[in-house]
């Protein structure tokens, strides 16, 4: 029977199956960070259990850490305790930790791929919803809760019901300046934030095939924002080329053999999905979110919508609440909306290509005097690479703040937060109320759009600048 990419990986990882019960699934890679793990390690300790496969477990510090002066002790005592708790847990249970002084440190979803821990055909989990990012490599990767983190630590398995499958096929060709971020925002806008609940999405079609690995990661990263369990892209030459020579990818003959296996993974031509969605992204405009969830999105050439025109009462009600929170009036052209802050970073858009694309816009220009803009590379390696290419100087000369790697103002657990009422153009993935700081207002955009907003002090159609 023809099989999907998803089914091939799932079936290959079933350890135990019983009718009427969820499957017991083997997990190949477990990524751990400081926020969702302390209670899991504590659970192990209380039950007298160990970590079954420390060799398949990798930890890093990313959510809580400051992005300046990382050598100093963390000022926030509770955050410091959480960071120290992860250090202690990793020591005690024999788990590798990429600490602040490690060249491998960074946002968990940035370092997995760049180190080659993420590979086609693997099952991967992390106590973090954006684990879907790793699906870009043709891995089955999904976020889990802390109880499940404990379960994986103890057993290297998870009890999971088989999700449904959905194929999203993008056709057309993208205009210059329109990115994977715009494509995924457009999809969530179309599908709604719960449109893919219970499903694993496979992204397909010429647009995705033409994407680089970094663009595919941006795409898969935000699958969860449409409610999907995971997002995936079939591995191909682009994938193999990206992986060759990465620190944890075996070299030589072993690599060749792995590639031969990976070539068998893509969905068979006749494979059936529970749902199919076709989206034409030809001549798509850059996208900007206007509300308080990632489905509330319009074209940059558009206006803030009028909730009273929505079909459903529930949508009208959340639209009204969103406009009130965002302090926007219906009918306002998006390009008239002014910003106070700009954040370029997060596991959605903090990789080298994202920084290059923002730097291209920033080069030789100046950040608007009313804007405070920061660039936070996704990992120490990205930071090093960017500095080697001189991107840091382009940014700082333009008036951007250049930071150390971490999650930073994507969720503002560290000191990088919006003040109440501040409006931010952000390359991150969530515009929920208070996400970047209580009372802060977030507009989701691509890195180039964020850089342009920093310079102009308001949103601009990046296509006019190219």
């Amino acid at each position, binding site marked *: 029977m023809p099989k999907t990419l998803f089914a091939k990986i799932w079936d290959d990882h079933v350890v135990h199956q019983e009718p009427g019960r969820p499957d017991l699934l083997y997990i190949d890679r477990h990524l751990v960070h400081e926020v969702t793990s302390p209670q899991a390690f504590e659970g192990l300790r209380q039950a007298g259990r160990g970590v079954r496969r420390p060799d398949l477990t990798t930890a890093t510090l990313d959510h809580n850490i400051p992005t300046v002066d990382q050598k100093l002790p963390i000022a926030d005592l509770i955050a410091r305790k959480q960071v120290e708790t992860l250090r202690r847990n990793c020591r005690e249970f024999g788990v590798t930790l990429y600490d602040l002084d490690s060249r491998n440190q960074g946002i968990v979803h940035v370092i997995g791929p760049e180190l080659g821990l993420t590979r086609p055909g693997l099952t991967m989990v992390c106590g973090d919803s954006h684990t879907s990012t790793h699906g870009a490599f043709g891995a089955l990767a999904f976020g889990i809760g802390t109880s499940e983190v404990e379960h994986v630590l103890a057993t290297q398995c998870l009890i999971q019901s088989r999700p449904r499958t959905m194929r999203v096929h993008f056709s057309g060709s993208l205009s210059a300046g329109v990115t994977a971020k715009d494509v995924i925002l457009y999809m969530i806008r179309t599908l709604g934030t719960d449109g893919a609940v219970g499903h694993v999405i496979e992204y397909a079609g010429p647009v995705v095939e033409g994407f680089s690995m970094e663009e595919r990661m941006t795409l898969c990263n935000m699958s969860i924002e449409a409610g999907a369990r995971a997002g995936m892209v079939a591995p191909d030459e682009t994938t193999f080329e990206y992986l060759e020579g990465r620190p944890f990818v075996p070299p030589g003959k072993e690599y060749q053999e792995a590639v031969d296996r990976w070539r068998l993974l893509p969905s068979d031509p006749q494979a059936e999905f529970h749902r199919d969605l076709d989206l034409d992204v030809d001549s798509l405009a850059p996208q900007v979110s206007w509300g308080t969830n990632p489905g509330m999105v319009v074209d940059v050439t558009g206006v803030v919508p009028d909730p009273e025109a929505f079909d459903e009462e529930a949508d009208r009600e959340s639209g009204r609440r969103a406009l009130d929170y965002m302090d926007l009036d219906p009918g306002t052209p998006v390009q008239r909306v002014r910003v106070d802050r700009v954040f370029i970073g997060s596991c959605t858009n903090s990789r080298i290509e994202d920084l290059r694309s923002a730097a291209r816009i920033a080069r030789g220009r100046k950040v608007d005097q009313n804007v405070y803009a920061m660039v936070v590379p996704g990992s120490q390696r990205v930071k090093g690479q960017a500095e080697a290419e001189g991107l840091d100087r382009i940014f700082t000369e333009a008036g951007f703040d250049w930071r150390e790697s971490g999650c930073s103002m994507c969720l503002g657990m560290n000191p990088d937060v919006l003040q109440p009422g501040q409006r931010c153009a952000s390359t991150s993935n969530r515009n*929920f109320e208070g996400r970047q700081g209580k009372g802060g207002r977030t507009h989701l955009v691509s890195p180039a759009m964020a850089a342009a907003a920093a310079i102009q002090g308001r949103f601009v159609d990046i296509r006019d600048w190219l």
Partner: protein
Amino acid sequence: MEPYRRETGKVATLDRANVDTDQIIPKQFLKRIERSGFGRFLFYDWRFREDGSLDPRFELNRSRFRGATVLLTGSNFGCGSSREHAPWALLDYGFRTVIAPSFADIFYNNCFKNGMLPIRLPGRQVKDLFRRVRENPEYALTVDLESCTLRDGRGLNLEFPVKPFRRHCLLEGLDEIGLTLRHEDKISRYEAAHSA
């Protein structure tokens, strides 16, 4: 984990769709390394005003909802971040049941791991429940997981769906890790076969 069998309690409503886990428990409270004590911070930004007093505009702050154990709310409840702190906060606040037309997957899953029951009901049944709460100040529900029914003692008797395995684990208060470890031999065999 505390078993969940039959629970009777007052119903509180939160009539909004897409309530995300960032709202249920804002990030500044995720730094704690304990599992308990999160109830104080539930819906923090909505529940409290700047000066720390309760915001009377927020639904859950109504005196009639004090002591409620059932939360009735809108679709896609628990979307966003995977933080298990969300069910921990709801539980610690006193909720043992959440009823909504739909839930986000990770949140839904996380509830079961903590002895909390999320119930998915068709939109019109949820709407009807909202009406009943509006009309009856002390509105309470009995949630019977043995028979998978909801009753209000005023004629309402609804069946709700829950997967048999999840139901079994909740009823018995089972530790899933313990269940999995019974398959130790199979896990080892899998590892041996796949490490080649």
